[in-house]
């Protein structure tokens, strides 16, 4: 894996070179400023597979550098790890909003950095394979149903790995978060009927409906695969959890889309949630996000089962959230 590390402190660059070399990552280039990094990236004849950026540097900072690198089409998905002393939530939010994939705070533990690099390497390999497949395909390939993909031109959209990294790394004790998952109930059917462009359009349309509702709030949104769009509202919002769900159900439920085949299809959705206003541990946040996804998937499965008259065969899953009860108490769209 070819890595570019950027930091204005030469001691940190020495330390990174040593730690990375001991972890087997010897193909390392370095730069001591964002300006130099851009120059290195533009001049190199071999692309980079991963970036490590400090944030606070003289001149252009690491967050602006992240935005600049993300604007380069060949690096739109390349893992970018922020390696920074800055440990306030504000800096995490800025970094992930600009396109960071992960965030490691200094002073870093070599073991932790190696683990994060291992994850970045996995992501890099997957993305290379997808990019290679896309080159051979005449049009946008249809992703597998379970495959997460990056939302296009959706505000505060980050990839699924980055969302998980954000939840794991953002400082403990940050203000309350609300976790949601929008599930396309008829995802399997629509996926079967769609071209790649159709399916991307469907998922992006759902994400757009969510971001319209969340306009003005602090949030990150991601496509998690299987027709699930997951999103976390972090920081203050004027809306309650229930208001957010109702607004999204109102805006996005029943959207119709015309597929490339000419067939008109209707998007059936449900929204699951899990609030975590008192959750302070990182693991609990990941669990809360999973609960929201499970909640949405459980409701969707039960709706399908009910439509097919299979409720007795597949009993409705027991969920802890109130949405499940409300939905099946007659509020469902």
């Amino acid at each position, binding site marked *: 894996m070819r890595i570019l590390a950027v930091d204005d*402190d030469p001691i*940190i660059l*020495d330390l990174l070179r*040593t730690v990375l070399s*001991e972890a087997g990552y010897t193909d390392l280039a370095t730069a001591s400023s964002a300006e130099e990094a851009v120059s290195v990236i533009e001049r190199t004849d071999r692309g980079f597979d991963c970036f490590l950026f400090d944030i606070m540097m003289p001149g252009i900072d690491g967050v602006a550098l992240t935005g600049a690198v993300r604007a380069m089409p060949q690096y739109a998905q390349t893992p970018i790890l922020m390696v920074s*002393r800055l440990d306030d939530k504000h800096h995490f939010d800025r970094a992930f909003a600009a396109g960071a994939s992960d965030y490691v705070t*200094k*002073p870093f533990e070599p073991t932790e950095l190696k683990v994060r690099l291992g994850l970045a390497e996995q992501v890099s390999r997957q993305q290379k394979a997808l990019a290679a497949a896309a080159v051979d395909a005449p049009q946008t390939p249809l992703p597998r149903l379970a495959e997460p993909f990056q939302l296009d031109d959706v505000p505060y959209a980050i990839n699924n790995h980055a969302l998980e990294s954000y939840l794991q790394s953002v400082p403990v004790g940050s203000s309350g978060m609300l976790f949601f998952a929008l599930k396309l109930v008829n995802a399997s059917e629509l996926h079967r009927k769609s071209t790649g462009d159709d399916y991307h359009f469907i998922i992006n349309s759902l994400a757009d409906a969510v971001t319209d509702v969340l306009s003005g709030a602090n949030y990150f949104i991601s496509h998690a695969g299987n027709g699930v769009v997951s999103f976390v509202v972090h920081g203050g919002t004027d809306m309650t959890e229930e208001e957010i769900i109702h607004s999204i159900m109102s805006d996005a439920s029943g959207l119709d889309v015309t597929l490339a085949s000419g067939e008109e299809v209707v998007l059936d959705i449900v929204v699951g949630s899990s609030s975590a206003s008192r959750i302070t541990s990182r693991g609990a946040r990941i669990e809360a996000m999973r609960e929201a996804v499970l909640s949405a998937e459980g409701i969707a499965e039960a709706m399908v089962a009910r439509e097919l008259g299979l409720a007795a065969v597949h009993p409705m899953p027991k969920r802890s959230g109130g949405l499940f009860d409300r939905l099946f108490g007659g509020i469902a769209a």
Partner: protein
Amino acid sequence: MNMQAREVQPDPAITAIREKFLSGLETRLAELDSLSGLLKGEANRARVWEEIRLRVHRIAGVAGSLGFAALGARSGRLDTAIEHYLNKPANPRDEATLSAALEGLLDDIDQILEEQAAA
């Protein structure tokens, strides 16, 4: 084999970086001392604090990884405090607190350098 007798040997590469950090620490101290002196004059104080913060931030980022946990922690607290101060610098009492914290950091660095010289 007596496992208890075996000591963990420091990584030679990390040791070399630690030495490099220590050899540059005097320069870092001199720069911070000089900037601290500028605060007593008519200089653009916010600009001086920004320069101080950049240097303190660098120490905070690396000291803990090289065996200077206390220095790293103190630098980290000062880094954060300067950031907050620069975001709303209205209160002179805050600046006095920052100056005192900076003096404490300079004393810490001084002590580390003295210990190294004596070793």
